[in-house]
């Protein structure tokens, strides 16, 4: 049972897989985006290992899902790498190699991605016959890490290692800069320090408990993640949500976008040392966080989403919420006025961290980063979900791709978000005050699968959920957070900039380490 807009196609040969992928992706990217790519261990169902690639574009609400059954050869499972033809596949294929031991032959970068030195070679956590105890027994914290960083050789090249513990209150990651004077010649990021084995954990805890886990994959995208996870499971069970629940989810998704975008614009001020801008941004963000808490009981919008609906009526007392939204809008306008007048701040943003559209398309950029580099991609209009198909709104796209453009995309979107929130609140009186949950329904059918998605503040979030033979627990949950797509763009955006601009460029992308590392 597959919901309507997921078109599955099994390709029998590796060459066919590459040919069809290139056809969907386009020679230079841009036709359809590679939304996610993952492997699944379906040996217990007799289907062996499979690699899936999901493509979709802006034009039509269809997901093209290619399935490549993996054949065992003498050296273990492997297939011809897709990366040389579809560059956006590069991190996905390295991840598949780490987690399943399925080797993409001919991949230009054969280094490990997810697993660090303490995980010995030959241990593949996501294979179904590998238990948690097996993995834990083999983890050896004394084992030296021998990750081969990219070396830049030549006169005057200075290597600067930074992290994983950074100077500020931020997440861990290691950055290896090769600099000439102050200019970054090459940046080799090493992430996955916060790898928590989330995908395997989903398989252990069952469908219902998965919601709480999804909310904790990326702290400030909690609601986008829980919505994407819930809608995947709801699609498998064939549940249709009451309109009030759909509108409530849409409202909270926009609220999440609002507090993130405002916080990000404020944080960019910290990147240039514009203290008053940072303080005003933080103060406004705090105001929105308190609205979050008042509406949902959680500053991070956790605990509201459930499979089948929402647990609280966030649209009641719409008048009160509307008044607060009005105050937030006033304060936001005044805050943006302050930023627009700070010429020294704006000048630092302009032309910093340029991300060319071609690189963004080829590497599969998503969210604000993509929309600032000329890719008009927004899941809210490409694949309308929840209440979005009943709303009329604008998506924004600019082409320059520098830090300033990324800030302006956020500024554009805040206006749109506030308008959507207002519209939903005004319509709320018209929604029936019936249940916030879909009625009782059958459980998850065995061996069914579905995609779930949401456009989070950082970009698209995708979940693929497949149920096991008993239908009680998932056989595979693939999580693709927005940051997983956008992290590989950083080295390109940083190249040629001075090192003191790195924090600023980093803040303009606002990438989650935890969402990427899982």
């Amino acid at each position, binding site marked *: 049972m597959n919901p309507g807009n997921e078109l599955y196609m099994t390709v029998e040969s590796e060459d066919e897989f590459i040919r069809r992928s290139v056809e969907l992706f386009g020679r230079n990217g841009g036709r359809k985006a590679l939304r996610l790519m993952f492997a699944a261990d379906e040996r217990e169902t007799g289907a062996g290992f499979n690699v899936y690639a999901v493509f979709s574009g802006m034009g039509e609400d269809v997901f093209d899902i290619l399935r490549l059954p993996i054949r065992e050869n003498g050296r273990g499972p492997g297939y011809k790498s897709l990366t040389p033809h579809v560059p956006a596949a590069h991190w996905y294929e390295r991840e598949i190699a780490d987690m399943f031991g399925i080797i993409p032959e001919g991949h230009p970068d054969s280094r490990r991605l997810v697993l660090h030195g303490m995980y010995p070679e030959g241990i593949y*956590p996501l294979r179904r016959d590998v238990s948690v105890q097996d993995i834990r027994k083999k983890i050896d*914290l004394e084992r030296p890490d021998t990750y081969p960083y990219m070396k830049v050789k030549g006169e005057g090249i200075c290597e600067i290692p930074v992290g994983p513990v950074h100077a500020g209150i931020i997440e861990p990651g290691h950055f290896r800069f090769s600099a000439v004077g102050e200019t970054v010649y090459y940046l080799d990021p090493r992430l996955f320090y916060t790898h928590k084995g989330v995908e395997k954990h989903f398989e252990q805890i069952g469908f219902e408990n998965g919601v709480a886990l999804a909310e904790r994959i990326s*702290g400030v995208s909690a609601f986008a993640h829980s919505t994407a996870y819930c809608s995947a499971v709801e699609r498998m069970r064939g549940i249709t949500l009451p309109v009030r629940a759909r509108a409530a989810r849409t409202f909270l998704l926009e609220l999440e976008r609002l507090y993130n975008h405002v916080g990000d614009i404020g944080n960019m001020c910290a990147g240039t040392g514009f203290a008053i801008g940072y303080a005003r941004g933080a103060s406004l963000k*705090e105001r929105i*966080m308190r609205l979050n808490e008042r509406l949902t009981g959680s500053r991070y919008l956790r605990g509201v989403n459930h499979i089948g609906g929402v647990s609280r009526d966030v649209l009641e007392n719409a008048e009160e919420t509307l008044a607060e939204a009005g105050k937030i809008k006033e304060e936001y306008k*005044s805050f943006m006025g302050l930023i*627009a*007048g700070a010429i020294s701040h704006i000048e630092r943003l302009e032309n910093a961290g340029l991300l060319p559209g071609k690189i963004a398309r080829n590497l599969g950029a998503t969210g604000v980063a993509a929309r600032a580099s000329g890719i008009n991609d927004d899941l809210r209009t490409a694949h309308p979900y929840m209440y979005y198909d009943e709303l009329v709104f604008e998506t924004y796209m600019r082409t320059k791709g520098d830090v300033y453009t990324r800030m302006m995309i956020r500024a*554009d979107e805040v*206006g749109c978000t506030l308008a959507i929130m207002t519209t939903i609140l005004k319509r709320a009186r018209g929604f029936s005050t019936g249940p916030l949950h879909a009625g009782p329904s059958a459980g998850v059918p065995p061996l069914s699968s579905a995609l779930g998605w949401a456009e989070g503040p950082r970009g698209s979030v995708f979940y693929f959920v497949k149920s096991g033979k008993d239908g009680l627990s998932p056989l595979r949950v693939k999580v693709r957070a927005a940051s997983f797509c956008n992290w590989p763009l950083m080295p390109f955006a940083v190249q040629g900039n001075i090192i003191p601009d790195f924090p600023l460029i980093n803040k303009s992308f606002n990438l989650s380490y935890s969402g990427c590392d899982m």
Partner: protein
Amino acid sequence: MIEKIFYNIINKKQARPLETLALSAGETELIEEARKKIDRVFGRSVRIRQVDAGSCNACEWECTALINPVYDVQRFGVDFVASPRHADILLVTGPASFSMALALKKTYLAMPEPKIVIACGDCAADGGVFKGSYAVTGGVDKVVPAVSRIRGCPPSPSAIMTGIMETIRKLF
């Protein structure tokens, strides 16, 4: 278009930001007692090094909120520092992933004595929702000795502030 709006609103009256958080009577008493100890033991100010050991980033944002104009924890002599060498307290978030274990241990070793470790958030206390996963040790305690725990997922900025003050009051 937005640029045009900017120019129009620059000259208008500025909206009033949130005011600094007022403390409850209990919090005031706690902070006053803790401040006396901070004055005596730490020479008037206590410095915190925050380490993310695999957190989802919500705890980090709540720590960051502590230094915004609303909570403004710096008014009590508490601040976050860049180096463990300058830190009195190590505030650790996250379930201590195996990949971060070594970095966490090294940060702890780089601190001067007395080394005070506070586990911040449910994951840091016992692994939280990640308990039982192959990739996490299941709590900060498994890597470095924590003297206290701040519960919550994530704990609110006020909870982190009182948690830190409680720890200081309890220890000295």
